[in-house]
């Protein structure tokens, strides 16, 4: 069971309704609706899925089935500075794993986790397509290329304040 309990406000529900209606509440547009909701709220907690289920008349189990199928959808809020390490092949052969290990160590987080203070979250992703810069690390929108394990402390330091 998902224990995160958030309380949606009336205006949040109105927003979700608006999104669903934008897509005519069509079940075939479920993924588009979830994309919009996630970009609006940052993540897709059960409460949001419940409301979407209600408006779109799709069983919430189906929605959960879709949300858990696609790696782009998340049910956990990301950190203020989400850190993603590319673990595509090009980055892998150029040492992404060591960089990832270093981030895990420095942040004391596992992949998919968000720090208790909500500052950083750690995830791995498959190929951002910047293979020339391998290994690549993204912090929010910012890209760091050719990252070595030794650079990790420095990268994090930029967000320490």
């Amino acid at each position, binding site marked *: 069971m998902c224990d995160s309990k958030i309380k949606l406000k009336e205006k949040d529900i109105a927003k979700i309704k608006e999104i669903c209606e934008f897509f005519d509440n*069509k*079940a*075939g*547009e*479920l*993924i*588009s609706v*979830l*994309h919009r909701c996630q970009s609006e709220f940052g993540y897709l907690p059960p409460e949001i899925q419940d409301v979407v289920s209600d408006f779109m008349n*799709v069983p919430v189990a189906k929605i959960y*089935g*879709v949300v858990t*199928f*696609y*790696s*782009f*959808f998340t049910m956990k809020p990301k950190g203020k500075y989400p850190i993603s390490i590319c*673990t*595509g*092949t*090009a*980055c*892998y*052969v*150029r040492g992404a794993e060591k960089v990832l290990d270093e981030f895990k160590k420095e942040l004391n987080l596992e992949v998919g986790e968000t720090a208790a203070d909500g500052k950083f979250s750690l995830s791995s*992703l*498959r*190929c*951002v*397509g*910047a*293979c*020339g810069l*391998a290994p690549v690390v993204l912090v929010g929108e910012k890209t760091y290329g050719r990252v070595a394990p030794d650079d990790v402390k420095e990268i994090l330091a930029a967000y320490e304040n």
Partner: protein
Amino acid sequence: MSKYKKHIMVCGGTGCRASESDTIVEKMKKELENRNLDKDVQVVITGCFGLCEKGPIVKMLPDNTIYTEVKPVNVTEIIDEHIIKGRKVKSLLPADSYKGKTDSKNMDSFKKQIRIALKNCGFINPEVIDEYIASNGYEALGKALMEYTPEQTIDIIKKSGLRGRGGGGFPTGLKWEFAAKSKGDQKYVVCNADEGDPGAFMDRSILEGDPHSVLEAMAICGYTMGATEGLIYIRAEYPLAIERLQIAIKQAREYGLLGKNILGSGFDFDIILKLGAGAFVCGEETALIHSMEGLRGEPTIKPPFPAESGYNNMPTNVNNVETFANIPTIINKGAEWFASIGTKKSTGTKVFALAGKINNVGLIEVPMGTTLREVIFEIGGGIQDGKKFKAVQTGGPSGGCLTEKHLDTPIDFDNLIEAGSMMGSGGMIVMDEDDCMVSMAKFYLDFTVEESCGKCAPCRIGNKRLYETLDKITQGKGTEADLDLLRNMSHVIKDTSLCGLGQTSPNPVLSTLDNFWDEYIAHVKDHKCEAGQCKSLLQYNIIAEDCVGCTACARVCPVGCIAGEKKEVHIIDQSICIKCGACMDKCKFNAIELI
């Protein structure tokens, strides 16, 4: 306004550097100075020419003469003859076949790459439709609508021999024909832009650099099959490509090149975007269609093929980005022209994303039939840091690791399959001597396990078991029986999986077993990892000659496995060592090695 009258460009690529291009530069500069020409002639070091085999390369400007295999002793001759006397140094000109067209503008045949799908990438502003039109954009659509019937258009594609660039290599024209012949109230053209192969970015580059070419091709396809709606299924992880596509669609609509009655032909066609959400399996067309329908991206058994019953159960044609990007040029330049490029069964070119331990990481487009050697050692500029080439993985997680012995294999769909790999979408990852092939196979299986949709048992569970067995081997706990097991599991997973993902996922295992058997044996019998990548198989060893007995290592060892008296050689008890590496870091005398 130019300060210099002439320029001498010397290749500074890794290959050329290895054959003394540095010395050539130094000598050039000195000789020019000696002749008081250094104010008129500039010597510059350039990036790789992609002719590494014939290096070092020197190019003369403004006349564009290229000299190959230049040695430091040739420097004076080049300066005296070419610069001073204005005569070409014949002995340094490229081989006979290239004579007569020795300036680089006409040296096209000298170049390994031909750009068709990428023809506009890096040349036009992708956000300005005028630039696309200026470079002959939408001409093919106009031609098809006005001058050809749908059947004739399909015929051109069929005759061109174009095969799907997404991996499978199915003849595109035939696919279009099936969709055209299917009956349905509504038909759909779908562009598969869910590039999920880790280490591949061909499609993204095309969409970001030349979005209109895809829109134009989709409209042509729609015309041939009688579809009025197109959908582009694109990775949500590609925000820039999405943005450029949206701009392109908007501009095309404004120009009336999408929408109702295109170019007065009576043909209606419009395109919308559908976002993927991060599932590699959605590259498979039935999974992709389910995902577009708002469902879990699980594949279904074919038949029925999408051409009969696809999106919303209507006839649907799915092609990938690169396939579409070839279409306008084929229509404009003709099927024969296209078929003349490449090999007989695999015509045209293929775009590859060249990455890994290679000097010139990048996006390349070569005619089918180019050898791996040409791609890796000429275009790619060879292996980084002068290391030894070990393997190249084509086809991403669905492909296999090819080796030295495959380097001269001409790349085409069939040859790659025969070699135990596949074309895939075009990722090409180069590995060197530091890469452990067992670990590499494990890396790919880790990917497959994560990306399997879970619908069918062999892919859901079998790949996990493959991964676990490989993991066991990399930890030094594998046995020879495990190798047999790997092979049997791989064959069964390939044989029984529901979709292309599972049918190809064991390829990295099988191809490494085939090509690197000794390395597997070394792992399971000698518990050795030559590449030094499998940590559990490494041993920290104290080099007796270098150890001064300072005791620093013994003091830092967290498990107390280093014994030795002061000023005497120390020894590591391998049975206790946890391989943390602390001793090696601590040793000031480089007396600890990893073997």
